[in-house]
């Protein structure tokens, strides 16, 4: 009962390994070596799915990755994969597959009612509908369209498998292991070149697996076997099976994906499911073969109508008979061979229709399976022929997709009735059917020649050996683009349900260019990229618009050749590994203390240190700010960029980079530095310390570190190579902590070695010094303050970073030390009106930020000229102000906009926006910094701060941005 269409002998399946699988809940038997399609065909199944738009019953058309119809959902749960082509799914024991796009079942699909709506659902119908009433769009049309659209469904949970990425290098990449590819690999491999040979199938051989041909007077498969053994034994050749080269990119780079474990129930331990490759090849040979063309006639989409080459594959490779009574229709001589293959394996041939002599197939009849076809002979006589299988062969399209990926257009070759590759990308050669040389002998010749040429071009000497010989053959073909007398729907693009009438409609409505026709009808835009549809489509377009095929031209292709799962592009970089994580020297210690972390770019920084479980960020921040300002706090500031500058011209260099003057900075002092972009906007800020005559240490913001480094390199290498200066990034060399608060000095005195004097006189505000601590450990001390308190930053070589934070906490205990995180750091700097990220947004100038005094008028620097543009001097330009809510308890929201009282919310009335907000424990109120038009003249004014997304509209009072200790007394104590 099972496998009623399985041939009792022959094929390349392994009958010693029977398999069980499930399709739409029904259990079936198959063998190792089957695809899902071949096994279902062997079991007599012909209905595989429902079409995209009309929900028509569909069966298998092809035997390869060009399959447009038989798309299934494979596996279940979190491994579910939609839109899998049954023709390429390798069968494994326990495989589960489900048909798509039908409800409630494949056999009875309610949506097939769409067929009745066909006259309305023509190409581009959605441009002319769903517009009225306007309110229906969001509530009615869009949800309905979403439910009806698409084919398969994605899985809901996380993929349990992992994926990998890798690079591979070779001299010669051979794409496709059919006769052309194998020949090329043999030639290049024997010559000694590093060769990678790959094929999308698990078996090498290409068409040789399906057509019973002979090479060197032996069965072609024996030749394949011998070649494979030889190639596998060559140390300079690597063979990848189940690998699709999906893209051709610039400079000899190829994208490929290897389906490492798709053919297994689960991946073996530590093996990825799939692995994507970037292959860098000096030369490549495309031996990707060709794809057969179907015919366009009435109801040509009935299950049981298949490509002749596919039928030969099912019969010869898989020992599966797709039908018992066949009509063979062909417009080429090779298509007629299907009759022989079927007859030799027990099928009855009801008729052979050779379209070259004028007989055509006009219409197919049958619902879930073809039952009869209607033929019209050259004299107009009509007859019906009963059948359950129709073989169609209408010539071949070279698989030249990769040749187009860099924009090259294929060329119509009249003598072959096919598009062949146009100007080839650098480094690529094409061999065999992929360039329109359709016979076996041509494939072998082309491959050998291409392999030898490639080997020679990379510096190897080809070995002379005889070309293998195949039986004499000629390709004779006269295409039939469509049968005009057909009634019923004549499908051109099966996957998108595009018919010949759609193409006529496109032409009538003015979409005459092949590019417009494609987008208007969606022909060629499905997951199969129109592999079995494009050429017929443009031929029909030519016919209805009175143009030749070469006048119409063809659309081209983009990668990927076949769909690639996103996991294969992500590889290892998913979830927490999506980006690398940068950890501070105190990270482990902070973790032990229960710190809550936040991401600052790639860094993980402590946001706050809850003192008891459940202390939220606001409570923790308030506590951390209070204790720091009343006693002492310590914060890890290692993430700020640090750049070591040395050289005779280091000072000059700094003068040109910063708005301020650093050549006048005495050794042992630190100065605030403001850096502009050349267009005059503030780029970054930091402090720079002079450690010696020709030795400076620059700091940058955390986010700006690498940008500033690149900027310095640009300025030195491009603008001023004559300057004698060298810079090195030392961000990672030093662990750096900020110790702030009235007790800061007391804490430090416990650590610095006895001979170091850090009294206020010896080490005043803005001093810097190389010191030693804890018995000789070298360190650097800087008296700078972001918080506005008496503060120091101490740097130690990073190996001591962990030990230092622990030591600080230990010796600081008697002074009430606590750690503080980013929240507290941020609040304190806002209280002091220091600009940071929100203000340094790339759209503010020194004048805007109240920092014009930092800009020396005595020298040029990067950005100085453009910072003086007339527009930047306009009086109503938004400038930095502070503000407080009129009502103390009101919370302020960042990003809110300023509006005058009574003004309508509009861009014209926009007065500026809020850049930073914080709850200030020092003032017991929310405070903020913002950019306000004409802000300097509006001190004391009351305006509104509005945020329509968060629905806030508060009255605020404008004030000086420095909320605390405006004279900086705490700093200098």
């Amino acid at each position, binding site marked *: 009962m099972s496998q009623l269409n399985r041939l009792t002998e022959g094929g390349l399946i392994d009958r010693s390994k029977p398999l069980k699988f499930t399709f739409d809940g029904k259990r079936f038997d198959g063998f190792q070596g089957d695809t899902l399609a071949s096994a279902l065909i062997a079991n007599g199944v012909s209905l595989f799915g429902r079409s995209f738009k009309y929900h028509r019953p569909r069966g298998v058309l092809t035997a390869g990755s060009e399959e447009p119809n038989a798309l299934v959902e494979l596996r279940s749960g979190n491994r579910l994969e939609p839109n899998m082509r049954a023709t390429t799914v390798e069968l494994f024991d326990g495989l589960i597959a489900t048909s798509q796009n039908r409800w409630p079942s494949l056999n009875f699909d309610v949506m097939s009612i769409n067929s009745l709506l066909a006259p309305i659902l023509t190409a581009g119908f959605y441009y002319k509908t769903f517009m009225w009433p306007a309110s229906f769009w969001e509530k009615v049309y869009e949800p309905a369209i979403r439910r009806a659209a698409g084919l398969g469904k994605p899985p809901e949970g996380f993929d349990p498998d*992992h994926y*990998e*990425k*890798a*690079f*591979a*290098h070779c001299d010669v990449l051979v794409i496709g292991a059919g006769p052309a590819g194998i020949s090329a690999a043999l030639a290049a491999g024997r010559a000694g070149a*590093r060769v990678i040979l790959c094929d999308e199938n698990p078996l090498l051989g290409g068409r040789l697996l399906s057509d019973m041909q002979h090479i060197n007077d032996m069965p072609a498969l024996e030749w394949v076997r011998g070649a494979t053994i030889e190639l596998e034994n060559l140390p300079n050749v690597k063979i990848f099976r189940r690998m699709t080269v999906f893209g051709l990119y610039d400079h000899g780079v190829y994208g490929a994906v290897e389906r490492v474990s798709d053919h297994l129930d689960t991946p073996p*331990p*530590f*093996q*990825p499911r799939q692995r994507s490759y*970037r292959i*860098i090849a000096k030369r490549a040979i495309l031996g990707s073969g060709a794809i057969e063309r179907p015919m366009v006639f009435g109801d040509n989409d009935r299950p049981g109508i298949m490509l002749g080459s596919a039928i030969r594959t099912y019969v010869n490779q898989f020992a599966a008979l797709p039908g018992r009574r066949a009509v063979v229709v062909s417009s080429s001589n090779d298509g007629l061979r299907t009759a022989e293959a079927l007859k030799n394996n027990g099928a009855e041939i009801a008729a052979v229709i050779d379209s070259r002599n004028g007989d055509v197939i006009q219409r197919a009849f049958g619902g879930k399976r073809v039952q009869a076809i209607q033929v019209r002979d050259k004299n107009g006589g009509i007859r019906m022929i009963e059948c359950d299988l129709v073989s169609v062969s209408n010539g071949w399209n070279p698989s030249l997709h990769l040749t187009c990926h860099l924009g090259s257009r294929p060329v119509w070759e009249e003598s072959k009735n096919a598009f062949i590759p146009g100007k080839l990308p650098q480094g690529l050669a094409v061999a065999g059917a992929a360039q329109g040389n359709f016979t076996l002998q041509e494939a072998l010749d082309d491959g050998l020649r291409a392999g030898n040429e490639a080997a020679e071009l990379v510096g190897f000497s080809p070995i002379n050996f005889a070309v293998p010989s195949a039986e004499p053959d000629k390709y004779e073909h006269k295409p039939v683009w469509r049968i005009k007398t057909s009634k019923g729907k004549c499908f051109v693009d099966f996957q998108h349900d595009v018919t010949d009438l759609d193409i006529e409609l496109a032409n009538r409505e003015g979409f005459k260019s092949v590019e417009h026709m494609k987008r208007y009808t969606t022909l060629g835009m499905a997951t199969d990229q129109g592999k079995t549809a494009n050429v017929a489509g443009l031929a029909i377009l030519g016919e209805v618009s009175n143009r030749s095929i070469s006048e119409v031209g063809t659309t081209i292709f983009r990668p990927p050749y076949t769909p690639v799962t996103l996991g294969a592009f992500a*590889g*290892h*970089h998913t979830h927490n*590994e999506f*980006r*690398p*994580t*940068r*950890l*501070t020297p105190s*990270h*482990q210690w902070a973790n032990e203390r229960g710190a809550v972390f936040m991401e600052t770019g790639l*860094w993980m920084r402590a946001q706050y240190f809850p003192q008891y479980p459940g202390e939220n960020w606001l409570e923790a921040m308030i506590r951390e700010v209070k204790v720091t300002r009343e006693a002492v706090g310590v914060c890890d500031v290692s993430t700020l960029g640090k750049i*070591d500058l*040395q*050289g*005779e011209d280091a000072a000059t260099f700094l003068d040109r980079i910063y708005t301020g003057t650093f050549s006048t900075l005495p050794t042992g002092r630190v100065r605030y530095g403001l850096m502009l972009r050349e267009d005059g906007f503030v780029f970054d800020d930091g402090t720079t310390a002079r450690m010696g005559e020709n030795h400076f240490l620059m700091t940058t913001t955390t986010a700006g570190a690498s940008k500033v480094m690149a900027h310095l390199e640009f300025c030195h290498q491009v603008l001023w190579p*004559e300057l*004698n200066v*060298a*810079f*090195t990034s*030392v*961000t*990672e*060399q*030093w662990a750096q902590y900020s110790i702030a608060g009235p007790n800061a000095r007391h804490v430090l005195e*416990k*650590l*610095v*070695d006895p001979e170091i004097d850090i009294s206020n006189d010896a080490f005043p505000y803005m001093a810097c010094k190389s010191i030693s*601590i*804890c*018995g000789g*450990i070298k360190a650097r001390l800087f008296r700078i303050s972001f918080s506005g308190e008496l503060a120091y930053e101490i740097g130690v*070589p*990073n*190996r*001591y*970073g*962990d*030990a*230092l934070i622990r*030591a600080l906490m*230990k*010796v600081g205990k008697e002074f009430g030390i606590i750690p503080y995180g980013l929240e507290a750091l941020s609040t304190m700097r806002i209280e002091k009106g220091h600009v940071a990220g929100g203000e340094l947004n790339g759209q503010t100038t020194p004048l805007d930020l109240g920092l014009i005094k930092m800009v020396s008028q005595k020298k040029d620097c990067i950005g100085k000229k453009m910072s003086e543009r007339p527009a930047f001097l306009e009086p109503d330009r938004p400038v930095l102000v502070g503000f407080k809510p009129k009502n103390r308890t009101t919370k302020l929201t960042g990003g809110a906009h300023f509006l005058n009282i009574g003004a309508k919310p509009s861009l014209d009335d926009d007065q500026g926006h809020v850049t930073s907000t914080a709850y200030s424990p020092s003032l017991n109120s929310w405070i903020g910094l913002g950019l306000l038009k004409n802000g300097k003249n509006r001190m004391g004014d009351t305006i509104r701060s509005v945020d329509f997304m968060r629905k806030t509209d508060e009255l605020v009072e404008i004030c000086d941005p420095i909320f605390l200790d405006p004279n900086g007394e705490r700093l200098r104590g």
Partner: protein
Amino acid sequence: MDNLILNPKSPLEPYLVPGRYGVESTEAGVSLKEKRDFGLVSLTVFKDHYEDLSNSIFNEFGIKLLLNSEISRSEKICFMNIAPGQWLAYSEAFSVLDMIAKLEYAVGKLASIVDLSDARAIIELSGSNVHDALAKGVSIDLDESTFSTKHVFCTFAAQLSITFWQSDDGLRVNVAVFRAFGDSLLKWLIASASEFGCDVKI
């Protein structure tokens, strides 16, 4: 201050857990350990002082400074040309202080000398599948026929800026990354080596 001692920690000390990762049934294809005792110093030559620098290095260390990303080695120290006019001096024999002192003495005025001994996490890899594991992120050709033991490589792999070089005999590869990214590099290396069996040692 009362006997407060600061104990150093290597970049991976908090994160590296020794043991066998991945496939266990065969001999490990990759062995991995962290380099914990080394000196790494950056030398950038000042303008017009290359000749003097070259001579001074030779006099002090017996090594000729090479160009074009080449490595010159002696038993105790090597100099790796990582950029035009810039070398990384690497030593497992000299202490950091010793190395800095020798360099300051020899070339103090001729080049900028910057200690980077704390700035990098360095992982040493060995085993028959090291190149296969690295090829999962490194876009440079690591085939025996072209992967040179005489050159140092700075590149981008697994979203990290790395510097790597081979031992003279080609049996070991050292991979250096910014210290703070050490754990990310370690995770990626172990993941890449798992299919071959990865032995992580202290």
